């Protein structure tokens, strides 16, 4: 049975990347606990709009955990604490208790400047992807699926890496603001497949160079990234990226 809960929400307000920003606070009354976290924020915004106040800005899109658009740092954890690997849109109010104080902050990282409130600019990830996160193929008729044989284990692992939705929770959780889990997953999804091998060295070098250029930090293997990743990406990917990168540089 759904029950209603009342709690205090502290949410971050910031007018732009240069603004200092501050918290605002509001009591939320009788919210059904089967409400999703984003629906709860919709309720908050309806209340604010009815009172003639400016609504709270946050990113969201598909609301089914596959687009990677939602990005809230809830009570000290990116996407909130779910233990199962879920994005903010898959977080439900039943995870919270009556009387809780819920603190909502944006991803805080120099490479992700705040656009407004909790909406941050994650186009740095797009730039890294554009630097080498693809394979160069001739267009034309699709090839037969079995023309290149791929061991099931490799195909599965590449698919696991490809499930990274680029939400940026890894960067948000990392005390170093490092993007290694994202970059390593994107490098791995190709490195594990024969189609990705011809450009593997070039890809690892180009994506790491872009990552460094955009101001992400150096990985110190704290594992905070894999602990919060909504798609459960493993730091084994980071070891693979290190391997690919070192091998590529030694072969230069």
């Amino acid at each position, binding site marked *: 049975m759904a029950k209603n809960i009342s709690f205090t929400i*502290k949410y971050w307000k910031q007018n732009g990347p240069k603004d200092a*920003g501050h*918290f605002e606070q509001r009591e939320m009354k009788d919210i059904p606990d089967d409400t999703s976290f984003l629906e709860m924020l919709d309720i908050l915004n309806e209340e604010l709009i009815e009172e003639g106040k400016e609504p709270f800005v946050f990113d969201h899109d598909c609301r089914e955990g596959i687009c990677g658009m939602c990005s809230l*740092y809830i*009570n*000290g*954890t990116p996407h909130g*604490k779910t233990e199962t690997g879920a994005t903010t849109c898959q977080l439900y109010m039943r995870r919270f208790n009556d009387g809780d104080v819920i*603190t909502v*902050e944006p991803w*805080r*990282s*120099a*490479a992700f400047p705040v656009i407004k409130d909790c909406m941050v600019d994650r186009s740095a990830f797009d730039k890294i992807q554009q630097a080498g996160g693809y394979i160069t193929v001739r267009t034309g008729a699709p090839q037969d699926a079995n023309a290149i044989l791929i061991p099931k284990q490799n195909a599965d692992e590449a698919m696991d890496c490809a499930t990274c939705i680029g939400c940026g929770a890894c960067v948000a*959780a990392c*005390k*170093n*603001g*490092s993007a*290694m889990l994202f970059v390593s997953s994107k490098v791995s999804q190709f490195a594990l497949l024969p189609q990705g091998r011809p450009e593997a060295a070039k890809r690892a070098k180009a994506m*790491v*160079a872009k*990552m*460094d250029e955009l*101001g*992400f*930090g*150096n*990985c*110190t*293997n*704290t*594992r*905070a990234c*894999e*602990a*919060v990743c909504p798609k459960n990406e*493993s*730091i*084994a990917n*980071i*070891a*693979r*990226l*290190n*391997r*690919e*990168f*070192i*091998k590529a*540089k030694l072969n*230069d």
Partner: protein
Amino acid sequence: MWLCNSSIGRKVIMSVTGVALILFLTFHACMNVVALFSEEGYNTVCELLGANWYAVAATLVLAALVAIHFIYAIILTLQNRKARGSNRYAVTDRPEKVEWASQNMFVLGVIVVVGLLLHLYNFWYNMMFAELIGDPYMGPCYAGDGYGYIVETFSNPILTVLYVVWFVAIWFHLTHGFWSALQTLGWNGKVWFQRWKTIGTWYVTILMALFLVVALKFAFCGGAC
């Protein structure tokens, strides 16, 4: 040069120097254990490692390793703080998987370096340095009498406590540093992760226990037992 210009390259430098320093600690621990069994044997080792050209050369290499490891730690820490941005989180929650040592490597490293300076002052300064400047009787004992210096140092309870704190800091630093170095060098994966963590924890625990046993033996019964 990719070793200095890329984030992974800088981490490779940290890993290689770190692994080399763990190997040195292993050698040092083995040498210390001799003092548990034989005063004469230990002092023979000390004579061999006095102001001989190979020992001096090895000391310079070690000093370079420590310096590079420490300088890169400062560079990486500063870059990482910049990457984190100027706004700090109001609420943070450390996930269970994240070990305390992994997030405090720099602080632990500073404690290790301070302890190292104390240790160099207690031993190296009176031993190799005294021999190098041609004054082997500079300190309280003869420069080659390493055994005498162990007895001397650990007869002081304050120094003993400081050494134990130092060993604990090194233990924490290495429990993360061991597997982290291998991860950075790319020699890791889903299967090897647990193996390296277990091997690393056992290795550094045995290593630091050897240092601790020698310190405590001399603290509690000096050269007598």
